[in-house]
């Protein structure tokens, strides 16, 4: 008897020693992927810049330097370390078309871009999750109405639909965010619906139902937490798309309005200077590219890390 008990305890202890949570596994797998780590590092730097922009930016991003410093409009970068004369004021990324410090504007742009990415995706995830969950869980005509509406939204190219929405609401950053949020709802709704459809047939859900759990309880406490994984991947990749779309809208003059330091609008307002002042075109473009790349790398890494079929790889 004593012997038996001891074995059981050992088994239990052995099990608990081996068991690691899904998130720990995911982190471990994520850190083993170099591309995901690079993405995380870039994003970490971006977040740091966004949080500390007001301290690290050498100038006010809206301050016109005419009469303040001896600088010319659209002057190329002046970096003392690279041989720019010491008596000239240092402007790492040059001067923009309105005689403002381009580097400070780029730094503040980071804040705006990350804000755009996170807020639109959060908005889309919340609405998309609710719609997808209701659709998947209840089925029937609710499913039909919601998913057919989503199909209609998906039938339009997302940027065109966003342009149409902004045209109706009027140009501006908030409206652009709303538009991008709305057009990205369907992809989240579909992902959640698919997960819910598979999860709701599982035994533990039936068990909860048998125990008398309410629909809401089953949906939000049993099903949704288990349908979260694909949403995280989709969300991370979605941030990249949202940033790109917001930059595109601003480039077209429908998003952030001047003088807001938004990368897309900075790029758009200097688009005719691609040969005469290339730094004003390429630097905001490079910033957009870097951020989108970082989110894509991280998103890809997360997808691989969260995919149980790839478990043997790690």
């Amino acid at each position, binding site marked *: 008897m004593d012997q038996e008990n001891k074995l059981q305890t050992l088994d239990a202890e052995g099990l608990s020693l081996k068991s690691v949570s899904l998130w720990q596994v995911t982190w471990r797998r994520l850190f083993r992927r170099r591309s995901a780590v690079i993405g995380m590092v870039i994003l970490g730097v971006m977040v740091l810049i966004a949080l500390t922009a007001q301290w690290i930016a050498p100038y006010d991003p*809206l301050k*016109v330097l*005419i*009469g303040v410093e001896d600088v010319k*409009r*659209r002057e190329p970068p002046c970096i003392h370390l690279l041989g720019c004369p010491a008596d000239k004021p240092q402007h790492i990324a040059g001067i923009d*078309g*309105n*005689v403002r410090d381009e580097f400070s504007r780029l730094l503040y742009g980071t804040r705006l871009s990350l804000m755009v990415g996170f807020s639109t995706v959060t908005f889309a995830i919340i609405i998309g999750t609710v719609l997808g969950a209701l659709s998947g869980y209840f089925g*029937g*005509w609710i499913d*039909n*109405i919601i998913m*057919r509406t989503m199909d*209609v939204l998906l039938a339009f190219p997302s940027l065109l639909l966003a342009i*149409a929405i902004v*045209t*109706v*609401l*009027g*140009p*501006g950053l*908030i*409206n652009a965010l709303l538009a991008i949020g709305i057009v990205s709802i369907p992809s989240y709704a579909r992902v959640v619906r698919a997960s819910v459809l598979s999860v709701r047939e599982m035994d533990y859900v039936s068990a909860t139902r048998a125990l008398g759990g309410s629909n809401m309880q089953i949906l939000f406490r049993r099903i949704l937490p288990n349908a979260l994984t694909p949403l995280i991947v989709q969300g991370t990749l979605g941030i990249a798309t949202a940033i790109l779309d917001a930059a595109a809208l601003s480039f077209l*003059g*429908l998003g952030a*309005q*001047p*003088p807001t330091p938004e990368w897309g609008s900075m790029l758009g*307002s200097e*688009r*005719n*200077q*691609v*040969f*005469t*002042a290339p730094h004003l075109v390429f630097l905001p473009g490079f910033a957009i590219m870097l951020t989108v790349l970082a989110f894509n790398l991280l998103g890809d890494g997360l997808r691989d890390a969260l995919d149980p079929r790839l478990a043997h790889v790690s």
Partner: protein
Amino acid sequence: MNKKLFALLSVIMIASMALAACGGQKTEVPAATDEPTTAPTDAPTAEPTAPPTAEPTPIPDVPIATYDGTSLSVAECGNGYTGFIKSVVAQDANTVVFTLCKSDPAFLSKIAFSPFSIYPQEWIESTAGDETRTSEGLEHPVGTGPYMVSEWKRGESVTFTANPDYWGEAPAAETLVFRWSSESAARLLELQAGTIDGFDNPGPDDFATIQADSTLQLSLRPALNVFYIGMTNTFAPFDNVKVRQAIAQGIDRQRIVDTFYPVGSEVASHFTPCSIPNACDGDAWYDFDPAAAKALLAEAGFPDGFATKLYFRDVVRGYLPQVSSVAQDIQSQLKENLNIDAEIVVMESGAFIEESGAGRLDGLYLLGWGADYPHITNFLDYHFGQATQQFGAIPAAIYEPIALGATIADPAEAAPVYTEANNAIRELVPMIPIAHGGSAVAYRADVVNPQASPLTSESFFATDPGGRDVFVWMQNAEPISMFCADETDGESLRACEQVTEALYSYEINGTATHPALAESCTPNEDLTVWTCALRQGVTFHDGSTFDAADVVATFNMGLNIGSPFHVGNTNLWEYYDYLWGLMKKPGG
């Protein structure tokens, strides 16, 4: 049951999509007309909340003209009729007599302007639709000019072919193509690639590139234009003259010209460029004085500034080569010098012109004017005449001397009158003149007789594209329509000028007038009766012969608001109205 419900839903959805597709007429207008509450700060509302004075109950005007095919006349001048023209009479097939209500020293300069081009009488009648000209009338004008419209691919190009029966010098190129792009860098790339022969308005930063390139040439265009900040005095706080004066003194105009304008530009000392006689009579504009401006604003009751909007259209014009940058600079100056928060609102070009012209913009707006004909009346009468709505109500102190000045031929005699007018404009600040902008036209180096008209009315029949058969011209924007009797847009007028002709025309690359469809127009002693001997043997593109009845029919179409043929594109007939006065009396 489920199937039925699904079918019903599908039908509703398809129907609503069809409705949405048919209902929206203008997709390009950013004006949020239906949902201003959701985005109060982001969209220009089409119906701004205006004080009651901004929207008086409209009483329709009464037509007063009689027209019988050879004569167009009003019974009497005055008595409610404020126009210039008393009658236009075809004395015989080749003579037209214009009788004016008051002497008009600028008659020849005005009559040469392209909106007053002559159309054949039958065409005028056949293309008059119920509300507007028919699409034939709007897109395929019939004139007597060196080129005929052969095809207008909307959104892409307009192709013209040479008129084989042209009465004047035959066009150098058999085919003329108009294209457009709003991006100066794109226009330059096309020229460098050789896909176009010339383009309007290179970016100021590209002047040096073009001059350094041996395969290209640059023609500088004199600054016969003005860029101004407009405001409508029926909207608060611009109804307060002190606010307007404060803004006038609180903007560093020299900084704008120095930073954003190309060589050949200058700060505007008066509304009209000084190369025009009488333009600069009176005191020069206020000096930049931020302290005085701030004090004035405080005196007006806004010590902490106020919030407003700064409207503009993102199109390049000679008077405003870098519109977005200038707008941002003005925005930052307003904030810095006067603590005025101006939110930038970019509008679609057509909507912007319509809203600003009707005085419906409730903030500051950036607009300008290029000379159509080289006379002070073209600047002052159009903008500050009694009928103008774009700045709200024009005070009598401004419009009275302007109206008087328009009847005096001798510049020396007119000087005191224009001194009074210019000083009143300076005092009452209906707008703030900023700059006279120099601009340029770029061509391929082998183009012979390159043009850069100070009136932006290049006549391409006289320009040889290096021996090639096709001359491809690229401008900033597509023509709005080619029925230019009822257009004001310079890009449209230039296209029309290749096709239609007026009684007089402007010299190439200059502003002097010389006879075109008229061989001469001679005035009587007090400049109130002008007798025009018409050119004989001229035929329209449709084969009909040009004669005096066509001239009378054209002016009947433009001036006689009671005529069934008085239908155009916008139906504002702005140039006919501002330069001659429509034949009408106020109703009621």
